[in-house]
């Protein structure tokens, strides 16, 4: 029962990883960038909410909305830089720019919000659900439901709507889309903004359970990317499953005092295993 409890307590992490993983997949498919700055963008929004609740006395709901907007705004700015200066660059170079954005955002974040630890607001504090002796926080359930909803929404939109399919087609050939009169640049910025908002919600939900400092929240991008890797950077469904799985394993490892300090090393195992397996036949850099 203790193991089950530990696993369930990993659910909140899993939800956040899954949400970040979905964002990474969407960004990779739609705007051709492995967004290393995904969690940093989310963290920026999260800190806005923390300040609003901690210092301005806002309640959680409105603060979360502002956090999402702040995440969307930060991401849109990044997207604008990317779309304006690096629209023709390959994925590798665009992802390198994302690394620079990670550094910029965390530098600005540390400057604006400081390094002192802050009281992080908790969604629905004290609200828990008991199932046969296992305690699940309401926040974990809310995040889990939200993540699944997002994954379903993304899937429905991209695979089942006309606009989504057109968007996917255009993301492969942005210049062709521009020639056809599609505002590819603004669509790309919109994709950035939406994922920025989602990342902000995800990091805000998980912040109370982590050491809430700007850098360690920004590095949540690593488990997020491990989740995305489990979806082979293509499937939002598998990214959700992957994120939850990584969260559950991290939760379970808390049960063992020998393993718990190494819980955060698990994403490396996932990343190495999945990537090497999926790329095992890529002996050469070019097909011929």
């Amino acid at each position, binding site marked *: 029962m203790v193991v089950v409890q530990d696993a369930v307590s990993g659910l909140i992490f899993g939800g956040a990883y899954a949400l970040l993983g979905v964002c990474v997949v969407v960004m990779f498919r739609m705007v051709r960038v492995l967004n290393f700055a995904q969690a940093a963008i989310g963290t920026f929004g999260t800190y806005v909410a923390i300040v609003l609740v901690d210092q301005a006395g806002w309640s959680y709901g409105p603060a979360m909305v502002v956090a999402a907007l702040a995440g969307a705004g930060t991401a849109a700015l990044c997207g604008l830089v990317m779309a304006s200066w690096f629209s023709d660059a390959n994925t590798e170079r665009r*992802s390198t720019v994302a690394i620079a954005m990670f550094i910029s955002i965390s530098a600005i974040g*540390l400057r604006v919000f400081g390094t002192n630890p802050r009281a992080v607001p908790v969604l629905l504090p004290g609200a828990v659900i008991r199932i046969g002796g296992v305690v699940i926080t309401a926040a974990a359930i809310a995040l889990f439901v939200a993540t699944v909803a997002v994954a379903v929404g993304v899937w429905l939109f991209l695979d089942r709507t006309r606009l989504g399919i057109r968007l996917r087609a255009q993301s492969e050939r942005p210049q062709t889309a521009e020639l056809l009169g599609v505002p590819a640049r603004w669509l790309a910025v919109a994709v950035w903004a939406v994922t920025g908002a989602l990342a902000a919600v995800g990091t805000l939900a998980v912040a109370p359970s982590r050491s809430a400092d700007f850098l360690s929240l920004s590095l949540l991008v690593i488990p997020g990317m491990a989740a995305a890797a489990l979806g082979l950077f293509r499937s939002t469904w598998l990214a959700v499953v992957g994120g939850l799985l990584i969260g559950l394993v991290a939760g379970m490892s808390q049960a063992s005092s020998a393993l718990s*300090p190494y819980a*955060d090393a698990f994403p490396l195992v996932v990343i190495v295993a999945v990537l090497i397996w999926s790329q095992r036949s890529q002996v050469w850099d070019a097909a011929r």
Partner: protein
Amino acid sequence: MLRVSRGGAGLAGGVAALLVIVPIVLGGFDTFVATNALITAVAVMGLGVVTGRAGMISLCQVAFMAIGAWVLLWLQLHVHAVPFIVDVLIAGLVALVFGVLVGLPALRLRGVHLALMTLAFAATVDVVLNAVGFPGGSVGFSVLPPSWISSPRDYFWFCAVIFAVLAIGIAWLNRTRVGASWSAVRNSERGAAALGRGVARTKLTAFGVSALCGGLAGALLVGLIGTASETSFPPVNSLVLFALAILVGARYLEGALLGGFFFAWIPVFLSDLSIPQDVSNLLFAVGAVAGLRGGFGAAEGIRQAVQARARRRREKRKGAAPARTQARHAPRTAAAANRGPVSAGGHGAALEVRELTCHYGQVRALASVSMTVEPGTVAALIGPNGAGKSTFIDCVTGFVRSYSGSIMVAGSLLDGLAPHVRATRGVRRTFQQDRTVPDLTIEEYMRLAVGAGSARLSPAELASVLSFFDCPAGDWRVGEVDVGTRRLIEVAAAVAARPSVVLLDEPAAGLAGAESMRLAARVAEIPSRFGSAVLLVEHDMELVTAAASHIVVLDFGQVIAAGPPTDVMAHDLVVSAYLGQEFVA
């Protein structure tokens, strides 16, 4: 043997003088910062190898520093008999081992996948070190360098010597085939293998050297500060160093120094101006974005501008033609040079292929193809698109190894060997796409292809090969010449290695008619001049009939005709394969 250009010698001398003078001029605190800058420069220099030279994104340089620091602390705490400098070297070597381990996945992972893997490694090292702690951390253990380098000034010089040794070592490697291979692999792995360079070894040496630099830097940093803690090597700093390496152009000596200088001194400058120190990271990141917009690296831009100016001045003095050297060889008629075998090879056929069959899934690309290329001759392999010509070359050169049948070059079996091994056993190829290495000079590229030791290319030979193929002088960078000329350089490099047989995959693609005929004359002369038999794959029938004495025709993976050009061109099956059934009388 290290040949150094005047500019290079001047730069090295200037840097050396600077390193000697700096601690004499500076005060105590500034010497401390300068030492820190130098140590960071060592780490950045490593990034210059793996990322700048070999083109692999490495986001774990600070993790290698942490490993080096941990090892040095452990050795200092537990092993007393060994001198400090030996401990530093061991720390570097342990990091090197980790570097090779991190490099192993890079044999399959590339681009953003590799970037993600290295970042995850950096985070994992941080997690592990947080759990394990640094040796002696709990008891307040502090490393004290031995008395001969215990003063800040002496320690700076100690670090300067290590920096200099590494810089010279890397400069030396850059001039050898190891360094040229880094550039070749960055450009194209297939291209590198075709030149006889193992891709795996090349990538692992790059990661190893890079990690060695990181490990040494970490150990030196502990020697400077005395201790290390969990917060000394945050994984984010790996990203910052990476951005910095892009910003400064870390593959060059001055770039690495500039990187160390920025990393150590900008925070100090900022705090003097009462601007918070962490703004420096923002500056590096913004600088990196600017660097990515305009190409890679400040040092690179400056160097290329200086080199281009120097060459323009030189060309003006000489009054030489800017593009190609004038052809000194009057074009000879047709294939006069190679009718009749020339004594070369001497182990039977230059290339003998028996019953070669190759499938891609359900598709049979080659069905029991047998052919022989005699020494001293030019043979041609022709056929419509999709006939299996390129697959044939891929099989012979080892890029496709899932075939049945046997391939023998100059009497030795090649089956089962990797492409780079086959290249050194006497079979070379060129590619349909341009796979020359734009980073290298033509001379460096030729030397990479030809190899070291007894095969080494003498300056006279180099000049003669280049002028034979109408290539520009050896000091031009490959990236500066037009694509058509690069194809000639590729052919020149392949034959300069004097293989038993050279396989040319559509060498005339993209050449104008007259140029293509000139190439035909050159190709026809390859056997007598270089002793290599030639197998020419080409669509240009004029070139084929002008250069080859024997033609093999493939269609749907099968040999449908073989023989002298006139016979083959008249063959019914060949006409129908090329033009359709109705043209056959």
